[in-house]
């Protein structure tokens, strides 16, 4: 009888670490092909509309960058924690807090045209995100509370805080009661870096984070210690490394990155606070990006571009093919499914047939 068995590899497969994301993307494309054919779309036209059309001009490339930027930034921050088995899945809430903190600065200095407003917004954003991430960090280190559940719960609390602010104290006084803040003044808006696009200077922060995390992961002793602490807390303890640091750093890195991304959204594409800022979904999507990117800075960079393309592709599919834009969420989900599914190949290999079982029996006799 033919069967497929998963057999543990003695050593994790190096090549599979890099191959499995490609395999996952390939599978997603094949699946997409089947879906498009099933929907009666010409697959070539459909793929063109989905993956080429959105980025075939400068403006589209700019959009790709501003969509990918927060995804990459947050994923880089999350990777610091994920590598050490710290599961911060509340980046969405930390992003909202970053938006709120940065927006608060922009509204406070509404009259000011100082060049310090923007830097202050980003500092406030990072602190806001870190403050939100500090809650699960504190509860985990002090009370041993599961950070997955706490960080997740706080996402919804953050959304409600934003909602309360824009319905109440921060509502635009000249806005006829509509629930949104004033438009920020120019001093609180990020400059555009490519004319004719919306690509803004927030992208530089992502690039900076890319360099910092690369150095940190590659050469940082701390990153190594955190990794050990994550995999084997006892061993790290014997080596004199306090595993509580791991929790704090892992969560705060994600919080700071998400907060910066929130500030960047507020000072970039939004330019004001409104409810749309609480449903960007970047914080959740960044978790997919971190995984697809293998928790590696370069991988995350490519994964964020792919995810951004999926978003834009969904809109383009609606414009050009009259497909609902929700199709992009389907693709995102599928991509992660396939990636997680192919991950197994790193630690296991497939074995076909029943020879192994027979051999083992023979050995036992």
């Amino acid at each position, binding site marked *: 009888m033919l069967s497929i068995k998963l057999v543990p590899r003695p050593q994790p497969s190096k090549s599979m670490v890099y191959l499995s994301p490609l395999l996952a993307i390939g599978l997603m494309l094949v699946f997409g092909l089947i879906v498009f054919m099933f929907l009666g779309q010409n697959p070539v036209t459909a793929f063109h509309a989905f993956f080429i059309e959105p980025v075939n001009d400068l403006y589209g490339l700019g959009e790709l960058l501003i969509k990918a930027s927060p995804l990459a930034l947050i994923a880089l921050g999350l990777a610091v924690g994920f590598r050490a088995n710290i599961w911060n899945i509340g980046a969405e809430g930390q992003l909202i807090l970053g938006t709120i903190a940065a927006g608060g600065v922009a509204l406070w200095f509404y009259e000011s045209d100082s060049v310090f407003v923007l830097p202050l917004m980003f500092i406030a954003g990072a602190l806001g995100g870190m403050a939100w991430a500090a809650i699960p960090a504190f509860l985990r280190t002090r009370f*041993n509370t*599961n950070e997955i559940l706490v960080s997740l*719960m*706080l996402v919804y609390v953050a959304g409600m805080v934003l909602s309360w602010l824009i319905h109440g104290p921060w509502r635009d006084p000249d806005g006829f009661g509509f629930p949104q803040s004033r438009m920020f003044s120019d001093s609180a808006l990020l400059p555009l870096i490519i004319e004719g696009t919306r690509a803004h200077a927030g992208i530089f922060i992502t690039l900076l984070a890319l360099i910092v995390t690369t150095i940190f992961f590659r050469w940082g002793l701390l990153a190594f210690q955190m990794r050990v602490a994550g995999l084997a807390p006892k061993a790290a303890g014997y080596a004199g490394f306090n595993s509580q640091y791991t929790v704090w750093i892992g969560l705060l890195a994600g919080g700071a990155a998400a907060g910066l991304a929130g500030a960047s959204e507020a000072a970039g594409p939004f330019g004001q606070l409104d409810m749309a800022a609480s449903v960007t979904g970047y914080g959740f*999507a960044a978790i997919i990006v971190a995984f697809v990117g293998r928790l590696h800075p370069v991988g995350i960079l490519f994964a964020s571009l792919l995810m951004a393309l999926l978003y834009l592709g969904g809109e383009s599919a609606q414009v050009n093919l009259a497909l609902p834009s929700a199709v*992009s969420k389907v693709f*995102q989900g599928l991509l992660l499914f396939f990636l997680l599914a192919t991950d197994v190949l790193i630690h296991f290999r497939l074995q076909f047939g029943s020879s192994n079982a027979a051999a083992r029996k023979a050995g036992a006799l």
Partner: protein
Amino acid sequence: MNTETLILILAATVAAAVPLIFAALGELVVEKSGVLNLGVEGMMIVGAISGFIVAHETGFLWLGVLAGAGAGVLMAFIFGIITLTLMANQVATGLALTIFGIGLSAFIGQNYSSVALDGLDKINLVGLSDLPIIGKLLFSYDPLVYLALLMFPLISWFLYRSRSGLILRALGESPASAHALGYSVIKIRYLAVLFGGAMAGIGGAYLSLAYTPLWSEGMTAGRGWIALALVVFATWRPGRVLLGAFLFGGMTIAQFHAQGLGIEIPAQFLTMLPYLATIVVLVLISRNANTIRLNAPASLGQAFHKEVH
């Protein structure tokens, strides 16, 4: 406020709690087996649209409920393949399941937005609904409400009184020992995960077939996440899940009544209460090793392979 109004508030609270009861009791069984499925919201919403489409196309509401359960099972099966057979990370897979479910439901439901459907009727058993007070409080619901309430004793009995329930719990505590005793960890976990999917699917179908008989994108509105919070809030006990569901489900209704009485609490603070309450409970049970061991399944969220653990 008179007794009659109070009765009506309680009745509305029971109805609002039903989707939470289904989804949370299902997730409870899943987590008891040691699996953490964060995809409840995704399974619910796919259950809601599948139930609605089938009920609308066939005209049989009960077929819709079955379809909701079936769709939940299919979603849970995807989760099972990836986390149980292929041993991938449960947190990431659960999130992917939610993102996928929200997208998929919007995709297949695009032609069903605000289409009219006659919802599940309330049942009036031999005129019981007309009894004063008790009639309104106990006998004024549609059948799914009773099914939800029935699931509580069934699941309690299963978990704490049946042999299979004992095995399931043992496995959630220590899959390795259960395996050593000759039980198939993967098979039992599959069954638990699929059951959780069916329950989430029915919870979603209740929304689109009974509570507000219509389909709209994102109509589960975060109830899947509340259900997840609820399981933790209830410290993995079915009875407390039931109580918590009334508490969380009744929160909005209480807030609306408070508005009528002129009590001013910003709606946002009431809406965030379930999440905050859950965090508080988590802190209370986690602060010492004994209480967490007594409450949370020890192997929650960890993958299992019989040759490596």
